[in-house]
């Protein structure tokens, strides 16, 4: 048998390990998505305000700006937060990270994703019309642990459903379908995003 140096063996071993064109384009698109998310998230923050010059010349202007921005934030936050969540789930949808559990059975998915601190539900809003369940993986929505459920809708398209625990401070602005309210809907980056509360959970769906 041929003898080679360890370096050559490692080179041979890794020669076969290459990113596919699809994976490569996913990674390249990451930067654009992240930059978009960053610009969206700064809309709700007041951090930029503190980067203004602190000299006395600007003091009066700053006070006026603070008052203006605080009032703006108070009124504008829910809309921007909904947009932030939408961008976050779209980012998760586009990235198509590997599924932690591949199964069309919700029970099997629940059994594997043991770290979730809630019981994933079969949504009446996002029903089986959205295709065949492919599996699930952990993800996060506004830093809260969430589950992504992926559906194959045919023709090479997929849709994703996200579920996470309901935190009143973060998500109280979302419509509750159990109270007869309609899900909040956005069209962003060519995708349809819906957000709502159902059975005490926060749900978001992305469809192509």
């Amino acid at each position, binding site marked *: 048998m041929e003898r080679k*140096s360890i370096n050559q*063996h*490692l*080179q041979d071993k890794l020669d076969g*390990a290459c*990113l596919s064109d699809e994976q490569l384009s996913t990674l390249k698109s990451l930067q654009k998505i992240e930059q978009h998310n960053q610009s969206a998230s700064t809309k709700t923050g007041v951090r930029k305000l503190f980067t203004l010059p602190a000299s006395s010349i600007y003091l009066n202007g700053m006070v006026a700006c603070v008052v203006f921005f605080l009032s703006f934030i108070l009124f504008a936050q829910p809309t921007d937060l909904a947009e932030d969540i939408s961008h976050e789930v779209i980012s998760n949808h586009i990235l198509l990270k*590997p599924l932690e559990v591949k199964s069309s059975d919700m029970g099997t998915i629940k059994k594997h994703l043991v770290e979730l601190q809630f019981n994933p539900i079969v949504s009446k809003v996002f029903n089986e019309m959205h295709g065949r369940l492919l599996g699930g993986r952990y993800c996060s929505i506004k830093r809260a642990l969430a589950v992504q459920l992926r559906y194959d809708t045919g023709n090479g398209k997929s849709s994703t459903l996200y579920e996470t625990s309901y935190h009143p401070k973060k998500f109280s602005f979302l419509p509750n379908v159990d109270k007869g309210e309609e899900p909040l809907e956005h069209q962003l980056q060519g995708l349809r995003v819906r957000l709502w509360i159902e059975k005490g959970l926060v749900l978001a769906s992305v469809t192509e």
Partner: protein
Amino acid sequence: MLTDVDYQNLFKYGVTLTGNEDDAFELLQQSIENFIRNQKSTVDKKHILKPAAYIRRSIKNLFIDKMRHDQKFHHIDYDECELEPILITEDQSIEEILITKQEFQSCWSMMDVDERELLYLFAIEGYTVQEIADDLGVKKGTLLSKIHRLKARLRTQLELFNEDRKAI
């Protein structure tokens, strides 16, 4: 920011650590996300000047975190190599050890994360010992003693492997 070759090499680095392409891709994605997120906020601009090195470090840290979470990781710090004084020469090349594919697989399976990373930097990135020491932020002497010990362990492993084969 990164060239196609950088992406491919970082992926190979992930495969070197994890041994699994799916895991490697996931680690690479997370690391690029971390890099982009920290690009503007980080104080240490040195890392940002070398995005590939920054992302590689992130891949390793995420991998170690995952191993710790799965309780599969036992880390031996580079500094521990300096506890026993040994005679180290500049010529600590691993290239001189010629082995078969089967022997390589046997040796590979017993290597820890740091050793795999070391071989990756030699074989794929083509770094010198000094460049690896700079990249990892360790002293050159520390690295040389690490390589010396790795070679000794490889020789022992090869002897054991060949003895087992003879016994069969």
